[in-house]
């Protein structure tokens, strides 16, 4: 008599295996649960990636950036000191660029807060002169202190700040938000896995009889798990697609609102092609996660039968 050999995976699958499961698929809550999870994950991921881009572009922009303000009420003295500051920085070798921010630009920048400052100037609302300096290399505290001492000798009304230093707290906040997004995504993945696990177990329970029969008729664990995997994969694909659409809609709407702000900082938060690819991968990862969870659950339950 021939030695019985294990029945390999990849061998028989059922023709229309879905019919073996009693559970109607769309009627179940499973696709909706998955859809919500995926939508939330998409939003969290989009937020995380956007924050990453904001932080990245802002960092590039202000690395080595110094702002010099000449706070001086008398316009002529202010202009004089501003020119001295410009020439001081122009003569340094470690300076990449120096630019005095023109007054028109400045008043345009301040207009939303102070009204038409250009006109108000004569009435004595003083606005400081601004000099934008870009150093080659990072701005260290030591460098800054040296430059401040030297500059004050020539332009006593100057106030010098590293742009990075006043943006520091913003960076910290952005970083915490990123951690928050990562934490959210991890939690959502965990919750999704738990939801799939529960769904697989309840499907297992309501189909216990069928499973036992297939088991006794010589169905392999792989075949039985396969039935569940395909059913859950379908649920997950459906839920994943719906969730992706929902999440993207929310992301686009938020994106429109931020774009409406017109803030330079947020403009750096646009999502690149790679980011969109990562977001599109979320439902796919969700499906894979659901299928693996379903398989492990079913196989574990089958192991209890001989």
């Amino acid at each position, binding site marked *: *008599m021939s030695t019985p050999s294990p029945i390999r995976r990849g061998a*028989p699958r059922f*023709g229309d295996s879905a019919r073996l499961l009693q559970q109607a698929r769309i009627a179940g809550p499973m696709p909706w649960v998955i859809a919500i999870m995926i939508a939330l994950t998409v939003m969290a991921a989009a937020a995380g990636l956007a924050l990453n881009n904001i932080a990245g572009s802002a960092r590039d922009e202000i690395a080595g950036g110094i702002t010099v303000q000449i706070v001086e009420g008398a316009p002529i003295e202010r202009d004089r000191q501003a020119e001295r500051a410009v020439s001081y920085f122009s003569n340094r070798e470690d300076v990449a660029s120096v630019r005095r921010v023109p007054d028109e630009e400045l008043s345009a920048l301040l207009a939303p807060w102070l009204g038409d400052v250009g006109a108000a100037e004569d009435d004595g609302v003083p606005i400081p002169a601004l000099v934008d300096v870009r150093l080659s290399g990072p701005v260290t505290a030591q460098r800054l202190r040296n430059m401040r001492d030297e500059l004050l000798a020539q332009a006593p009304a100057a106030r010098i700040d590293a742009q990075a230093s006043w943006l520091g707290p913003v960076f910290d906040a952005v970083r915490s938000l990123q951690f928050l997004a990562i934490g959210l995504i991890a939690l959502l993945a965990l919750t999704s896995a738990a939801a799939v696990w529960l769904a697989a177990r309840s499907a297992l329970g309501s189909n216990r009889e069928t499973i036992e029969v*297939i088991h006794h008729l010589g*169905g*392999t664990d792989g*075949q039985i798990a396969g039935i569940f995997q395909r059913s859950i994969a379908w649920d997950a694909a459906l839920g994943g697609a719906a969730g992706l659409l929902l999440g993207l809609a929310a992301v686009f709407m938020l994106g429109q609102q931020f774009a409406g702000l017109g803030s330079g900082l947020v403009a750096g938060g646009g999502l690149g092609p790679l980011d969109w690819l990562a977001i599109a991968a979320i439902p796919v990862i969700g499906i894979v996660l659901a299928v693996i969870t379903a398989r492990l659950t079913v196989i574990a339950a089958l192991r209890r039968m*001989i």
Partner: protein
Amino acid sequence: MSDPESSIVQFANVGLRYGTDREVLSDISFTLYPGSFYFLTGASGAGKTSMLKLLYLAQRPSRGIISMFGEDVITLPRNCLPGVRRRIGVVFQDFRLVPHLSTFDNVALPLRISGMSEERLQKPVADMLEWVGLDHRSEARPETLSGGEQQRAAIARAVIARPEILVADEPTGNVDPEMAVKLLRLFEALNRLGTTVVVATHDVHLLRKVPDSLIMRLDKGKLSDPTGALRYPPKRDLPKRDLPSRDVPQRELPRK
């Protein structure tokens, strides 16, 4: 124990206990020969169902050795068991038809499990349904079948893949005597084609209906064999043909 080569099932000192209770089966030793027809009798609670569960690999014994088809099925790796199960047909006492599948799909289930293509299984399943007189009910759900029809569907499913052993637990428990005899004729017909048949029943009248049958009796978990069948190989001529393969039957199936 006699020549293991010619046996299809061997139990040696098999004991079974559920949990930590006393043994419901003790010191069970016997040999089944291919092509024979066995009845397993005994009072209610004697352990008939438990023994059949051991036979169709739904239960592991707590001690002893069980070999089937020349293989020690207790030490066989788990992934080899489906292969053994596919050589065993089971008629469950409660039929266990899959409720949301039609009669046709229920009967086709073993063939689909073994990976037969849809087009190849159409004819054997239709033939089998005709054989058990259910061809006009092939699209019906089990719940709409009468008790006897369900029983015949269960039997059709058990034999469709031409098992080498057919195990039936009280297959005539819920039907009238006339139907019981009719179903026995089905088993006999199968037996004549070479399938080893084991039927558990507490209906002693049934035993006389199959002349060449061998009788095992369970009494409080102990096995006795009033006909001596288990000590000696059966006297009657065994069918000379090969054991039926798991493929679709090429031979003509007898009419009901």
